[in-house]
């Protein structure tokens, strides 16, 4: 019953957030200078009648509120309209790009979780020793460094100097080429975001180390790996919360990393659609990414709250 209430409140919050975001994006795009109908036609010479017909087709002559209402009433049935640039439906236009982005995010999420929790545990175990100091300071540099700067340096080292990994594009779609093409971007993302998880894991593990049950287990000569496992289980709630945050950061950072590695993902599509004023695409992409970010955070928070109790 309590869970049901919790979930329904969260769902309500999600809906309000989505509506709020969509209104902000919608009004921003329509108040901005530039005419979508013109963008649609490119540099072609057209008669005013044709221009009007196109404006009618995309409801561009209606007032803002009516336009928003038309969009919203279609959006709830998962019909997000047609892309102004390609003329195809928004879902068909964005689909392939989103799949690439999701692949990249998932890949680097796995890497970050392994690296962040692993190194965080090691760092806490060797507190104040050299290895801890090195890990903590490197983590500080990595949290501060913007992902695209790290990405460019990695491209230079691995692509230009060593020439061992492909630095642009996504390859032919096979699993091996997928991995080799996504490896550098995924490492870049991992470097940029895993420090967050590392620091939380380290501080939580230190907290657990100071608690009575660890002292007791030590006194009973329980095997060290068993102690570490119990500590990890007990520290998992805050770690899970930060994993939600990590996913959110990943989705933002991937937009920049994709541009750096020339990966045809949602980031590049969003940037170019913003410039071209392709309203339906921008609206859908922003909402889709925001939805993913908010929902993944909610799920992690929910599981974390279950563990805490």
């Amino acid at each position, binding site marked *: 019953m309590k869970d049901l209430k919790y979930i329904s409140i969260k769902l309500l919050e999600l809906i309000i957030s989505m509506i709020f975001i969509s209104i*902000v994006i919608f009004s921003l795009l329509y108040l901005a200078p530039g005419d979508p109908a013109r963008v649609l036609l490119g540099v072609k010479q057209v008669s005013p009648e044709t221009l009007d017909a196109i404006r009618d087709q995309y409801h561009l002559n209606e007032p803002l509120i009516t336009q928003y209402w038309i969009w919203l009433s279609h959006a709830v049935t998962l019909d997000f309209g047609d892309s102004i640039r390609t003329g195809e439906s928004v879902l068909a236009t964005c689909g392939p790009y989103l799949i690439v982005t999701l692949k990249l995010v998932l890949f680097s999420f796995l890497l970050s979780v392994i690296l962040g929790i692993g190194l965080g545990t090691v760092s806490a175990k060797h507190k104040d020793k050299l290895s801890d100091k090195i890990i903590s300071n490197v983590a500080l540099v990595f949290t501060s460094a913007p992902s695209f*700067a790290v990405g460019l340096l990695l491209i230079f080292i691995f692509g230009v100097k060593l020439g061992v990994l492909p630095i642009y594009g996504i390859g032919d779609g096979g699993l091996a080429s997928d991995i080799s093409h996504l490896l550098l971007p995924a490492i870049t993302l991992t470097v940029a975001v895993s420090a967050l998880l590392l620091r939380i894991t380290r501080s939580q593990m230190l907290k657990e180390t100071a608690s009575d049950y660890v002292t007791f287990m030590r006194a009973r000569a329980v095997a060290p790996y068993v102690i570490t496992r119990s500590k990890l289980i007990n520290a998992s709630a805050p770690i899970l919360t930060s994993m939600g945050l990590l996913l959110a950061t990943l989705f933002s950072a991937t937009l920049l990393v994709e541009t750096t590695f020339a990966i045809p993902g949602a980031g590049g599509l969003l*940037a170019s659609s913003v410039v071209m004023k392709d309203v339906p695409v921008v609206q859908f992409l922003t909402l889709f990414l925001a939805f993913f970010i908010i929902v993944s955070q909610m799920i992690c928070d929910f599981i974390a709250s279950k563990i805490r109790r």
Partner: protein
Amino acid sequence: MENLQNLQIKTRSSVYKLLAHRPVLVYLSAAVLLCALVWLIFGSILAPHALDQDITLTTLSPGDDGHILGTDGLGRDVWQLLIAGTRSALIGPVLIALGSLILGLIFGFISGYFGGPLDWIISRYTDLTLAMPSLLLAIVAAGVIGGGYYVSVLVMIILYSPFDIRLIRSAVRAEVTKPYIESVKVMKIASLTIMARHILPNVVVIALVNFFLNIAYGLVSMSALSYLGLGVSPAHADWGRQLADGKNIMYENAASIIAPAIAIILVSTAINALGGYIADRFGIDTES
């Protein structure tokens, strides 16, 4: 006001204390920031012709023709652009952190001190905005409004402030219930005086630490926008812009990406390190 002055003296002497036991990292960070500051202030002397260079469209390697770091794709000197870029690398982020701090103080205090329906509205607003992907919104807003550097700064202030508001609100709330505030309240001292004289000194350190962190985040976000080609014009000297331009001439002159990349990483690490160090010394837990 007397109390505020005392506070300033107190923080100043604490700064001395900070420097008594400093890790090497703090020294390094201070050196990096000092260097950036010199570049910022004396930029027009150190790199007088950064922005009115001849466009020759030939890329030179480091060392050629007296160009220490070579030239970029348009034949502009990378070293001079790097120095001139300090301006947009520091001024915008500092303005973002400052604006966000001011909004945070105003709304955080209103919300935390008075409570009631205003608190409810402000809290719901921060809940709503904090759940949103800020970089995503910044890209859309900066791209659509397209008003250049200072419009992006404004957008960033709006996107950053909810975090400051929430932070200061909870810091204020923690103080308001304490006996010393109860007693000055009983003395019927004006609310504004209580806030400025009695609560502010206890909130100012946490706000200051966050101010530092916001500068570092601001630097990363602003250079991310200019990296995507939003926010600054192509003629502008900006490290993010330099990275985007240098991407295509990596084989001809690698220094054109390595130099600005390292500049951004160093400055943002230095600011974070100093902020984290101050937080440590004042016993503020930045981890949770």
